[in-house]
């Protein structure tokens, strides 16, 4: 557990000192959402109708943005091989790095989302559910993304390939995340959607580090 926290702390320090990852993800998220009123027109009713979906799609793309570098730097400077040799199981290494990635890129998205919901004229009923679904959903995105990042280590054009592999697997998260908000706005219970989303998290939490570790072992073989 101590080693696990040390690894999380190391990744957080690295991300904060380089400084760019967290801010770039949030900036991309905000800009992506801001593009929509220009594209579909400033009509408040239309924006309110599509707000949930737009924010979720933007969050998906923003979390994809920095995934490529999740293992890349460690792979290139050789520290990944040392991490494989530590007594800490490789599954825990993947989980620690994913947790750090989520803290750096996922949490700022959750903070920024209500502001964007105001800009898109979303109804007030949806705000709480929006934050809740993002809080449950973005860790799933980071976990699934970690598998893709581990698989594409050392590949040619890894970034483009990563999005091709990962985006289809993101679709269930998107469906239930946006569905919960729509249900809340329409006055229905968002509970079933949130429970299914939590189920995805409960499934991804043990399985994704396992698959990611299998992929990493082949990368450093």
């Amino acid at each position, binding site marked *: 557990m101590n080693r696990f926290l040390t690894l999380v702390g190391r990744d957080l320090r690295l991300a904060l000192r380089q400084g760019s990852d967290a801010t770039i993800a949030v900036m991309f998220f905000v800009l992506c959402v801001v593009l929509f009123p220009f594209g579909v027109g400033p009509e408040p009713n239309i924006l309110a109708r599509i707000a949930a979906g737009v924010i979720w799609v933007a969050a998906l793309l923003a979390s994809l943005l920095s995934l490529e570098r999740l293992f890349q730097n460690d792979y290139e400077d050789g520290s990944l091989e040392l991490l494989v040799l530590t007594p800490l199981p490789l599954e825990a290494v993947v989980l620690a790095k994913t947790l750090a990635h989520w803290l750096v890129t996922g949490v700022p998205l959750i903070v920024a989302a209500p502001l964007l919901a105001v800009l898109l004229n979303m109804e007030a009923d949806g705000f709480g559910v929006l934050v809740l679904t993002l809080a449950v959903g973005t860790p799933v995105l980071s976990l699934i993304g970690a*598998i893709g990042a581990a*698989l*594409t280590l*050392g*590949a*040619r*054009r*890894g970034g483009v*390939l990563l999005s*091709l*592999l990962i*985006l*289809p*697997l993101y*679709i269930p998260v998107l469906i239930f995340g946006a569905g919960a908000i729509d249900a809340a706005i329409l006055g229905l219970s968002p509970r079933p959607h949130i429970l299914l989303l939590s189920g995805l998290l409960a499934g991804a939490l043990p399985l994704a580090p396992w*698959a990611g570790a*299998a*992929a990493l072992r*082949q*990368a450093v*073989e």
Partner: protein
Amino acid sequence: MHRFANPARFLRLSAVIQPWAAGATVVLLVVGLYLSLFGSPPDYQQGDTVRIMYVHVPAAWMALFVYVNMAIAAAVGLVWKHPLADLFSKAAAPVGAGFTAVCLVTGSLWGAPMWGTWWVWDARLTSMLILFFLYLGYMALVNAFDDPERGVKAGNVLLLVGVVNIPIIKFSVDWWNTLHQPASVIRMGGPTIAGEMLVPLLVMAFAFTAYFVSVVLLRLKSEILARKIQTLRLNDAQGR
């Protein structure tokens, strides 16, 4: 199973099976097409458009069947490191992607007259589209590395991750209320489809399976030969 992991033994065996599979494909396809176009009644509601089913449904079955086989081969390749298992997934992927594409296109052509739209975002259609992207992603990943071994192994992990989609496709029509009709052949309590339609459907399904077997054996053979040529060239270059 380990007995047939030897490439030389496999090549001898496949040389025996392959012509039979190719012949069976031709015979079954001719019989199946005759039965489905002329030998079966039109549907009382859909008329002659129902004949699209005889291509659409077997293609959909094959798309799932090929993916499951590739995933099993991926697990075998990861656990026992059989070289043939790795090559099988690589050889089968384009064929499976082709079946998925045929399923999506014929489904769209069938949807236009029956549902009044080429495409709906319904659970069965969407999960089938995801399967298509999984095939494409697998093929892109396998070819993305300078070292082919590494590409195949990364692809194996991806195949196993993608298996979660298979039960979603199969049961999507039962779990969600969709425009796509529920299962009528492979279901609890036996098929509900009429007998004179079931026979051509099954013949076509066997024709597609025979086609898959013959093409995959051919592709596997060429993969093995390509590996041999590469090894010979490498030895040549090293001056041995």
